[in-house]
């Protein structure tokens, strides 16, 4: 307990995964394509005066609709103008449009979003209202109206479009900033006395930078397609060459030759696709970086879908779990090992050779710290492991049925049908996130009963009310009508307990059932659990890290560390005479058992300070 350095240092991320996002981006073929196309666009726009064979409006009427070849690389249009030259000249307007739109949108959207997100309140209300108005207007209609008002001008149309799309930057910046503003590290910076400007520059902008770059790639694509659309409608500036205008010209003569339409359409398609693909590739590159950073570990394992494909393959083997002839225990987990694939041929074992049993009317505590494999073991018992999980050894039986037969490599859902929800109940950890916020408590309690037991709605409702009363809910009728967000966490946990016992199971699996609750609510919920367990003679598998909860409820204890069982036995033996070093360390770490600091060390004198 006096040893201070933490031995469990997180291993540094592998070097390959830590590579710079830019390098990762360049390895993506789509990104490479995008960069090449966009560079070509810039080159065409800047070099057009030098490399274009003809001036933009040079027309040779005698040579209209010429086929590609000769002096006219891509042929000529209906007025005998060289399509290749016009494409080059048109790239100037295209690029100019993209630059104006993105610059305008960034200039309007980002600062307002930063201010609205950081300061909130009035500023937020006003700017959000404006953003909502802009978002509520169909872009083309607005641009048409602007054109009616100020006449055909590429620059003004693109400025207007920039303002029209600025809410997307505004919203993105605002929501990112709002998220960051509530992060504790920003609070810490404020406590350190950093100025708002410095916090924005150092912490906030850093976070919003990446999503803005992605958004800009997408806005570039939008700018080109809207610009082309306007020019196609003939609403652009008639004195400039544009790809949209060329499409429009080509469309008129499409019956004679589709080529006049093909070239500009291809140019537009290639460039917009380049922008969109670049946006996607950037997102992927940055998301990968996020993944390496690693989400904060969550105590509850994700409720991933059981492998449904596997189900279908095994449909023919019959619906129910296979019989197990000799059954001594209610639940018998024997030599169970569970692993997850981490690469093509790599497995990460999370449960190693774990054996324990639960008898009828017996409460077994499964104790360990995070990463000990206690939840994984329990979810195997329930058949609720993620579809990726592989059973690398061992078996699980319930009463006289195999849930995981020796030799099974996967969890098979059909083995659990008729058992899970009916004979095995489950109490989760977080009361709120385990109820569906869209349905009333009553519906969530009665629909599984009707499905599993096949009883009528009235009967299910009556039973649900009785259940709620039995878990200590004072007004069952009102609670039945309530939605989850209308009741407290303690009440929600009682509702979940009522749900777990609603089909009169023989075994309850409770995953840290009181960890998320306040200590006084925990005591009440423990009372409910103990009362039910004794009244119904339930077997209980209780997963917890709290030895107090163990002492309160359990008959036997199984201690786990990094996926393996280190010790198990009757509760008094384990708590009073732990034999394994790890159990001793766990019990020794309980501050409850330790002396108060103040009796252990002398008070400071002024000199010592």
């Amino acid at each position, binding site marked *: *307990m006096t040893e*201070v350095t*933490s031995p*469990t*240092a*997180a291993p*540094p991320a592998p070097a390959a995964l830590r590579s710079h996002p830019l390098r990762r981006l360049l390895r993506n073929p789509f990104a490479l394509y995008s960069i090449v196309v966009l560079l070509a666009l810039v080159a065409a726009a800047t070099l057009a005066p030098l490399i274009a064979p003809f001036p933009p409006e040079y027309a040779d009427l005698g040579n209209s609709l010429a086929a590609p070849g000769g002096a006219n690389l891509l042929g000529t249009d209906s007025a005998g103008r060289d399509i290749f030259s016009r494409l080059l000249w048109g790239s100037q307007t295209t690029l100019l449009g993209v630059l104006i739109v993105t610059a305008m949108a960034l200039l309007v959207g980002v600062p307002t979003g930063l201010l609205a997100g950081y300061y909130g309140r009035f500023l937020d209300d006003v700017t959000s209202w404006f953003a909502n108005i802009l978002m509520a207007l169909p872009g083309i209609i607005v641009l048409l109206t602007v054109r009616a008002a100020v006449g055909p001008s590429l620059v003004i149309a693109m400025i207007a479009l920039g303002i029209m799309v600025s809410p997307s930057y505004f919203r993105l910046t605002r929501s990112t900033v709002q998220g960051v503003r509530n*992060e*504790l*590290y920003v*609070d*810490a*910076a*404020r*406590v*350190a*006395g*950093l*100025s*708002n400007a*410095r916090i924005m520059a150092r*912490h906030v902008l*850093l976070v919003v930078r990446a999503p803005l770059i992605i958004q800009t790639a997408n806005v570039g694509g939008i700018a080109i397609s809207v610009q082309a659309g306007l020019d196609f409608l003939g609403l652009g500036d008639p004195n400039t060459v544009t790809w949209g205008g060329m499409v429009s010209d080509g469309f008129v003569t499409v019956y004679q030759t589709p080529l006049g339409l093909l070239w500009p359409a291809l140019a537009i398609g290639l460039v917009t696709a380049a922008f969109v693909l670049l946006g996607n590739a950037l997102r992927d590159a940055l998301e990968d970086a996020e993944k390496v*950073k690693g989400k*904060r570990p969550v105590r509850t394992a994700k409720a991933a879908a059981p492998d449904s494909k596997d189900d279908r393959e095994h449909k023919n083997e019959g619906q129910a779990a296979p019989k197990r002839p000799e059954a001594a225990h209610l639940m018998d987990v024997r030599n169970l090992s569970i692993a997850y694939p981490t690469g093509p041929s790599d497995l990460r074992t999370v449960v190693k050779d774990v054996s324990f049993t639960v008898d009828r009317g017996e409460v077994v505590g499964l104790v360990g*710290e995070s990463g000990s494999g206690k939840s994984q073991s329990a979810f195997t018992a329930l058949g609720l492991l993620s579809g990726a999980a592989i059973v690398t050894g061992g078996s699980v039986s319930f009463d006289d049925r195999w849930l995981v037969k020796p030799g099974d490599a996967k969890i098979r859902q059909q083995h659990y049908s008729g058992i899970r929800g009916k004979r095995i109940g489950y109490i989760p950890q977080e009361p709120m996130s385990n109820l569906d916020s869209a349905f009333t408590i009553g519906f969530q309690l009665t629909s599984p009963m009707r499905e599993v037991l096949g009883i009528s709605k009235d009967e299910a409702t009556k039973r649900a009310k009785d259940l709620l009363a039995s878990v200590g809910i004072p007004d069952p009728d009102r609670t039945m009508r309530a939605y989850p967000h209308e009741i407290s966490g303690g009440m929600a946990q009682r509702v979940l307990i009522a749900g777990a016992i609603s089909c009169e199971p023989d075994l309850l699996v409770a995953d840290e059932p009181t960890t998320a609750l*306040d*200590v*006084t609510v925990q*005591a009440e919920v423990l*009372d409910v659990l103990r009362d039910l367990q004794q009244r119904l003679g339930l077997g209980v598998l209780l997963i917890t*890290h*709290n*030895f*107090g*909860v163990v*002492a*309160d409820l*359990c008959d036997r204890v199984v201690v786990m560390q990094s996926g393996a069982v280190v010790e198990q036995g009757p*509760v*008094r033996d384990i*708590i*009073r005479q732990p034999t394994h070093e790890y159990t001793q360390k*766990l*019990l020794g*770490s*309980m*501050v*409850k*058992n*330790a002396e*108060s*600091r*103040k*009796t252990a060390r002398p*008070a*400071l004198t*002024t000199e*010592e*300070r």
Partner: protein
Amino acid sequence: MSTMAENGPDRLLEVQDLKVQFRPKRRLARPFQVLHGVSLHLGFGETLGLVGESGSGKSTIGRAILGLVPAAGGRIHLEGRDITHLKQRERRAVSKELQVVFQDPYSSLNPARTIGDTLSEPLLVSGLSGQDARKRVGTLLDRVHLPSDAMDRLPREFSGGQRQRIAIARALAPKPKLIICDEPVSALDLTTQARVLDLFAEIQQDTGVAYLFISHDLDVVRYVSDRVSVLYRGNIVEEGDAEQVTVNPQHPYTQRLLLASPLSDPDEQAERRAAWHALNAVDASWRL
């Protein structure tokens, strides 16, 4: 509790009748009062434990002292100086005396910045040169028993307990007189929790820093505190010597807190449970 009568006020922190209310989301609704006039005080080098359940307002007290939420009433004095309503610039001066360690070791460090950046930022702001700041960061990391090469790594490369050590190092950087510890160990595993608590004690012994230690866990509070205040729905219902409040509480709510927390021995817990049931059977008129 020691005094410093000769060179300044004898109390490091003095909170009088602090009221905090939250503005509701809807404009016309009435503001929601979180603290109804809370008073507490803290001497130099002392640890005051602040215990309460969710919704009691215990974290709000800490945030109000730090200036992260505005006080609606009452006064907060640090070393005799009124810090109730300070401007951002004036806060900077106070930040040398007053620091914080938050609960969540994951969101309290900027994931995109190295440990060295995070730790040296307040030092640079206070005018230290880059080289001096780096040296000081090295000392700080050593102080919390982390290797100095941690400086160039990102938060994601550290475990929860290690991140909490880094947060402690950040709090120690300006050599503060008071650190607000807002549930600093409740997100940690049992064994890590014990080691971090010991680190807090060790630092206090060496530097004489005072802690306002906020927690929901009566046992943790007893373990680290000289005195304890118990908070219930925005009011302090009991305060006094740590041992006395946490072992032999007088107020029914504190008694409830104590008896609700299960003991790790089955037979002792059976006794405590019986006492809990007995307490629940008696009058509960003290509840608000």
